[in-house]
């Protein structure tokens, strides 16, 4: 049942993936700037330029280029980065783990914080506590991750220098890890000091990503939770003699989460998209940072590869959300 659902969803995502690939391919190919001109020393002969164009396949027609690129991509070869002169695949694989750790860390913060806000707001309904949570979520929602990043950097990095504001790990620390999932590996190996330094570096960028999402989750979940609290089954639970906490957490929260998951779904993809800018601001060595440099350098193979990676992440997120939605909602599982 679940397997079939996943397969069916993946199949439906295929046209989206193809559409993204075609669109990006065409888009970057009509960029006026010539990538070759940017990578060679001034004074190179026209012959040299022509040779390089041939090397990267830029002298062919766009459909031809696409066919060649797509054929290789299917075999796992996304070409070579023009500006960094390394295989796109190895560049992405080297940087992806840090972005994933950042995104997952931010998501966990956002869900925990958002749920806490929603439950607190509903528990203190009609009192000062509710007004305070409403104001907090309203403010956090109006401020985008870009400004949160700068604010956090300014406050916790400069005015009260508590946390590092650039990089992933202190340059003096050499963990000597085998994988690139530093935080996961540090935790598994019990390297507390390294894990602590990683978390310290992660905290500000993750918070910048998490706060708008947390506010969104908080607001949506609070309103759906408040609506659930008006349902007759909640009244019946009260009349059965259960405590308010037990009713909120044991009866209403799960049902309230169902609309909240579908309403906040888009925001999760915004979080992943947000890593592009946040990594740039915090000089965090992930694929987002790589992507902005790639665009500024007109590094076509790298741009294509990275955008496909992002599209794939979005598809996986949406699939995950669908599964969570189905798991929460018995109506979709049975009958």
């Amino acid at each position, binding site marked *: 049942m679940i397997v079939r659902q996943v397969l069916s969803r993946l199949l439906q995502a295929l046209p989206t993936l193809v559409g993204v690939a075609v669109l990006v391919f065409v888009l970057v190919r009509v960029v006026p700037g010539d990538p070759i001109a940017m990578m060679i020393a001034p004074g190179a002969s026209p012959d040299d330029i022509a040779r390089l164009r041939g090397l990267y396949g830029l002298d062919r027609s766009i459909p031809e280029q696409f066919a060649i690129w797509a054929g290789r991509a299917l075999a796992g070869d996304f070409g070579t980065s023009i500006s960094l002169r390394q295989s796109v695949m190895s560049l992405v694989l080297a940087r992806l783990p840090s972005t994933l750790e950042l995104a997952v860390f931010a998501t966990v913060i956002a869900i925990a914080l958002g749920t806490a806000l929603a439950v607190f707001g509903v528990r203190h309904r009609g009192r000062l506590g509710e007004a305070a949570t409403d104001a907090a979520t309203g403010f956090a929602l109006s401020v985008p991750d870009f400004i949160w990043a700068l604010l956090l950097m300014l406050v916790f990095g400069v005015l009260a220098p508590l946390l590092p504001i650039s990089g992933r790990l202190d340059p003096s620390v050499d963990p000597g890890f085998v994988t690139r999932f530093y935080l996961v590996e540090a935790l598994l190996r019990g390297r507390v000091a390294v894990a602590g330094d990683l978390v310290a570096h992660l905290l500000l960028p993750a918070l910048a990503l998490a706060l708008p999402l947390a506010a969104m989750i908080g607001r949506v979940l609070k309103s759906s939770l408040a609506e659930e609290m008006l349902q007759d*089954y909640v009244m019946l639970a009260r009349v059965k*003699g259960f405590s308010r906490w037990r009713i909120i957490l044991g009866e209403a929260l799960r049902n309230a989460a169902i609309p909240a998951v579908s309403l906040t779904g888009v925001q999760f993809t915004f979080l992943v998209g947000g890593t592009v800018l946040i990594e740039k601001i915090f000089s965090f060595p992930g694929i987002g940072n790589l992507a902005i440099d790639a665009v500024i350098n007109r590094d076509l193979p790298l741009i294509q590869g990275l955008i496909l990676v992002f599209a794939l992440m979005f598809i996986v997120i949406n699939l995950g959300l669908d599964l969570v939605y189905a798991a929460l909602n018995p109506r979709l599982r049975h009958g």
Partner: protein
Amino acid sequence: MTVLDIAGLSAALHGGRPVLRDVSLVIGEGEVHGLVGMSGAGKSMVARAVLGILPAAVRLTAGAIRFQGRDLVGLDERGYRRLLGRDIALIPQDPLSALNPSRRIEAQMTDVMRLHLGLSARAARDRALVLLNEVRIRDPEAVLRRYPHELSGGMRQRVLIAISFACEPRLIIADEPTTALDVTVQQQILVMIRGLQRRHGTAILFVTHDLGVVAKVCGRMSVMHEGMVLEQGAVADIMAAPGHAFTRALFAATPRYDRPVEALAPVPAAVLADIAAAAQAFDAGRPC
């Protein structure tokens, strides 16, 4: 013996507008008392006051609600939690929204027994099966495994009735329990409630807008409007000879398939005006 004794109960919104005016009614052991009126008459407010779940904007201003001799007015939440579910239970109006859509029937039936009777999961399940048999559900084992959306409206209402009788309460509040149901299902549910009530000797406060339902299942009745009880007495007496003009008007406004078309008439404005004047006089005489 008296199970419920509501004496001189008044309630008002925070702004001061009264919603209940000097409501008194007594329910003896094993008695079914019908509380009838139009929407906004205050009948649900009485039910909620007994259950201690008045809306946040409503406050009791006078009177007592004595349950088995003990006044519930001013009882704290903890005290109510010990009482509700065990000694006082509710049959709700809407069988669709009164069951939690994401919990199986078994969990929703057994939780109240485990809380109040201290039963083990197994013992509670066994008792749930007995109760489902009592409400004449054919395959109780299967129903326990189901989610609410997999049951019909009538089945859900049977489950809710089983839940209300789970801890052998002395008093059940039935809040329009058949309003959302089709007429044939309504008959089944009413027959069932009446049967269980007789066997268990439970007292019921039966809130409804339907005079027909009162006639079929209640022994005594109160007619309410504008938060006041206008007439009270044995159902047989009131059906035979309604004493209050409003009660007579209510009968005349209820369409019947066995009466000529011309017999139907809305409640006359004069009757409503008289009641409004009485309400005003009450409010003036006793400022809140």
